[in-house]
């Protein structure tokens, strides 16, 4: 009935069209069962045929009666046949009128439909062109933005690297011994510089992912065990200071994958670092399972993730989960996005499971086995 309503709204015809017009009812998609109710012309045609048959039977009956009663065709019979012819004529005429009218309505409706279709098509074409143009402009703008970011980040890295270098030399004693306070300050400078470099690197990675550049360069024979051990070494101090455990159950067999070792480290570090950061009691366990794929499982007893957020974890930048924001832990909300993109670029899969807030989370990283 929606089509009917639409017709009324567009004013190209009334539902009467449908009532009288078999073709239109069919064109508009009315099912055959419904069509009979609407298709009056068809109904009238049927009715006319029925009248014809009934009348012929009646004439035959009258002729037979006339012969039986009078032995000849009576005047009454002639009058009856004459009346019947007039009645046929009337119905035939009526029916023809209806058919002509229906055909006319059909043609009119067809024309109106064609006009409307043409109008719609030209409107769609116009809008598509406008959208294409707007989309093109947006893409160009986005590309310019990303290229600007890329250039800015390269220019930021240069002075930062120099600062990092001088700080490193100062702490290494290349420029003589410093007093305790100076060393403490230089230590802080080193931490801040390292953090700043990490931010610039992360932004650069995001920009390159968004520019569609292949950020990872896959190399064969990358062993997972040393990478994870190195990570545990880096994060052990933080875990110990929080009083939580950080365990790595080494696999029985050596697991090698085709990977970009530097980028894979970044991806895994983000996951394990998050697990340590957001676990206040209990701890973090890392397992590797090797079958037709290599699966790295990072399970923690931390703050957990609301079930509705587990799917969107890796797709958003600069957004942190509700529970994560409630903690005193600082975060930029880009680590998981970067990890997700890196793992995808390794033809791998990454996902998270959690039974809810405060119930811990498990992160799964699946990498194809090296053949």
């Amino acid at each position, binding site marked *: 009935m929606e089509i009917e309503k639409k017709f009324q709204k567009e004013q190209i015809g009334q539902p009467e069209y449908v009532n009288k017009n078999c073709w239109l009812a069919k064109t508009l998609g009315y099912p055959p069962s419904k069509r009979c109710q609407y298709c009056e012309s068809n109904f009238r045609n049927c009715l006319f045929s029925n009248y014809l048959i009934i009348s012929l039977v009646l004439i035959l009956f009258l002729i037979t009666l006339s012969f039986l009663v009078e032995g000849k065709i009576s005047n009454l019979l002639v009058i009856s046949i004459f009346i019947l012819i007039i009645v046929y004529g009337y119905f035939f005429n009526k029916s023809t009128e209806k058919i002509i009218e229906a055909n006319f309505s059909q043609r009119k409706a067809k024309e109106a439909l064609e006009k409307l279709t043409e109008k719609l098509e030209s409107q769609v074409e116009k809008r598509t062109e406008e959208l294409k143009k707007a989309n093109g402009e947006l893409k160009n703008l986005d590309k310019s933005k990303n290229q600007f970011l890329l250039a800015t980040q390269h220019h930021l890295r240069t002075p930062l690297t*120099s600062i990092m270098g001088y700080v490193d030399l100062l702490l290494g004693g290349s420029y003589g011994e410093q007093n305790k306070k100076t060393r403490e300050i230089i230590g802080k400078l080193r931490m801040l510089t390292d953090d700043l*470099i990490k931010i610039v690197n992360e932004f650069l990675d995001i920009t390159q992912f968004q520019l569609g550049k292949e950020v990872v360069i896959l190399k064969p024979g990358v062993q997972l065990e040393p990478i994870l051990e190195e990570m545990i070494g880096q994060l052990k101090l933080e875990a110990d200071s929080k009083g939580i455990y950080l365990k790595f159950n080494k696999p029985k067999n050596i697991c090698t994958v085709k990977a970009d070792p530097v980028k894979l480290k970044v991806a895994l570090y983000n996951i394990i670092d998050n697990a340590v950061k957001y676990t206040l009691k209990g701890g973090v366990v890392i397992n590797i399972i090797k079958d037709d794929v290599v699966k790295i499982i990072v399970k923690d007893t931390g703050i957990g993730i609301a079930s509705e957020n587990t799917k969107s974890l890796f797709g958003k930048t600069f957004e942190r989960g509700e529970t994560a924001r409630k903690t005193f832990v600082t975060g930029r909300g880009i680590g998981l996005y970067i990890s997700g993109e890196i793992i995808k670029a390794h033809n791998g899969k990454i996902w998270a499971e959690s039974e809810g807030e405060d119930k811990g989370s498990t992160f799964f990283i699946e990498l194809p086995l090296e053949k």
Partner: protein
Amino acid sequence: MDKNKKIFLIEDDPNMVEIYSEAFKAASIDFEVIRLGREAIKKIKTIAENNKDKPNIILVDLILPDINGIEILKEIKNNENTKDIRVFILSNYSDPDFLKTEKVKAEKFILKADIKPTQLAELIKKEL
């Protein structure tokens, strides 16, 4: 580490030259600084001709004021007498497309921002 072993540092940024020089000195690494791309090409050509005084490792920056580091890498790797010299690209320029399109490959790519000078000196000592 063998005392006769030597490295070249092809770098134009005066701060980085100072920083790396200091770190290499502290680690007792014999090094020579080359600040211009053309100067580096000339040096490699001389080494190739005489087939002597070859450095063991060449650290090369990608962005130099005159020519880019890839040209220097090509010069080294396309010459029979110098192609066995190990080349480590040491740069802050990390556009993956730029590196992927090149057929000539360096032995290592080191991002300056990812490695502290003392760590770099340690790595070089290990590699020499």
